[in-house]
């Protein structure tokens, strides 16, 4: 597999395979993801996209039957050698369904920094404000920070989750189909938000929505499911190249909607 990166690679994956007990979910993935760019991961259902995404912050470690081969590096450091809590601080995640805590908006965002030792009220206020502004939610909630996070609309909740992830100052943000549970208007807002975040963060986003991948990302990975239901990387490259001039036949078929 060729990989084209312009610039430094933030995350590098080498011969990575993942097994749920005896079942192989990912096979020999090798790729380098560029820094400060948006990387989209596309592919049919069940091909391991989310599993691959969750490998970057070792969320798969939570499942007892999982074991892996190969290595993943963040800034050239093997993520298994780094303290997993530190890793997750540097690699944040936004989930498919918004999952704000049953706390106030303020507490939702302050939870992360507090857990990392920040106690000064003033600093916390600052963090909350900055995160909400970055997530384009500040103007809507600035007068009601004590309201429960669950009382917001779906789109607002997702932006709250993004703000929450931003509050711990990550370097990479992983997003697992962040807009799939939202209506089109909210989706657009999230997409704009992601474009703005690109400057400061490296973003990896799994999406089912090919139009979204085509217009929003810089770099694309196309995964497919093999006969034995293991996921593998078919093709990767700049988004423009993938969508206008795909090298692999499978890629072309998927993009033109012939399967998946």
């Amino acid at each position, binding site marked *: 597999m060729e990989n084209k990166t312009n610039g430094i690679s933030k995350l590098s994956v080498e011969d990575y395979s993942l097994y749920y007990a005896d079942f192989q979910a990912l096979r020999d993935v090798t790729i380098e993801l560029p820094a400060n760019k948006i990387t989209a991961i596309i592919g049919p259902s069940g091909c391991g996209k989310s599993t691959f995404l969750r490998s970057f912050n070792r969320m798969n470690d*939570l499942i*007892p039957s999982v074991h892996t081969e190969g290595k993943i590096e963040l800034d050239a450091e093997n993520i298994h050698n780094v303290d997993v809590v530190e890793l*997750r601080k540097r690699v*944040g995640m936004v989930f498919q369904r918004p*999952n704000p*805590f049953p706390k106030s908006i303020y507490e939702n965002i302050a*939870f992360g920094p*507090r857990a*990392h030792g920040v106690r000064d009220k003033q600093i916390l206020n600052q963090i909350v404000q900055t995160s909400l502004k970055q997530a384009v939610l500040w103007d809507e909630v600035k007068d009601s920070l004590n309201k429960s996070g669950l009382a917001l609309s779906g789109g607002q909740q997702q932006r709250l989750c993004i703000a929450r992830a931003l509050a711990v100052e990550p370097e990479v943000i992983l997003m697992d189909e962040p807009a799939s549970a939202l209506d089109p208007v909210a989706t657009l807002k999230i997409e704009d938000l992601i474009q703005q975040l690109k400057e400061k963060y490296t973003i990896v986003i799994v999406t089912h929505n090919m139009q979204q991948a085509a217009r929003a990302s810089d770099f694309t990975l196309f995964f497919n499911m093999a006969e034995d239901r293991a996921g593998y990387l078919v093709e990767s490259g700049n988004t423009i190249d993938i969508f206008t001039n795909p090298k692999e036949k499978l890629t072309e078929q998927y993009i033109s909607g012939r399967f998946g």
Partner: protein
Amino acid sequence: MATARKLLKYKPSKFDYKKNLRARNISQKIAFGIIWLCAAIAVAALIAIVGYVLINGLPAVNLEFITTRPAGGVSGEGGMSTTIVTTIYLVIITTVIAAPLGVLAAVYIVEYAEETETGGSFIFAIVKYARIGVEILAGVPSIVFGLFGFIVFVSRLKLNFSLLSAGLSGACLVLPVIIRTTEEAVMAVPRSYREGSLALGTTKWQTISGVVLPAATPGIVTGIVLSIGRVIAETAIFWVTLGGSYRLPRDIMSSGRTMALHVYSLASETRAFDKALGTSAILIIIIVALNLAINLSSRQFAKKFSGK
């Protein structure tokens, strides 16, 4: 050919469907009547008991009754002031011992026990059986807890008949209740909360203490209130560990008498049935209030968590 002729000789008897249906409906009416009767008897028994106690007991309850100390002895004179205070003391001591222990135990059973499957050490493997321990503990009759408390706390540890002995024994009694309800409450917390917290870079305990336990609090509180109700209603276990003094306990090592024990003493040692009924009436009111509190609060908390 022979078989065909045999078959043709077979004539189905006329089946009166309407008559059969009528018969079945009648038997249904009878059966349902009996069932309604059973339920009615059950509810009537409850109403009879509660009603009798309240109707005959409340007249004996007045300010003097509540604020006077029992006089002791065979006369059954006096009130029940010290028993109320003793009951409160006992409830607090039992809850303070059992609640943290039970909550932490349940947290372990739910959150950590699965890790024992992936080759934990021997100690962790034992805790897989913690659930069985809770099951067994839940089935022990209260008099056996009394014997246990008697021999361990009163006798061996030389704590004598005291609030402490009774509190420790009572804590053993209600521990399974708290563990079970906390277990349920913690398991009901959606996985997405835990994942969301861990993805922020928190340790497991930070996730549990910061997100899971606060979310599970309504269930935990329900369990604690249930255990309080249990302590107030129990007699056998405290009969053997608390002693029977009608005086006010001066400190945690003094003996005393709970309201339920007072009812027993009045009923079996004196003829003062009116006072016994009076104390029982107050007991019933407290239990009803607790039940109501549980029902109302669980509805309230459910609303709070849906965010509306």
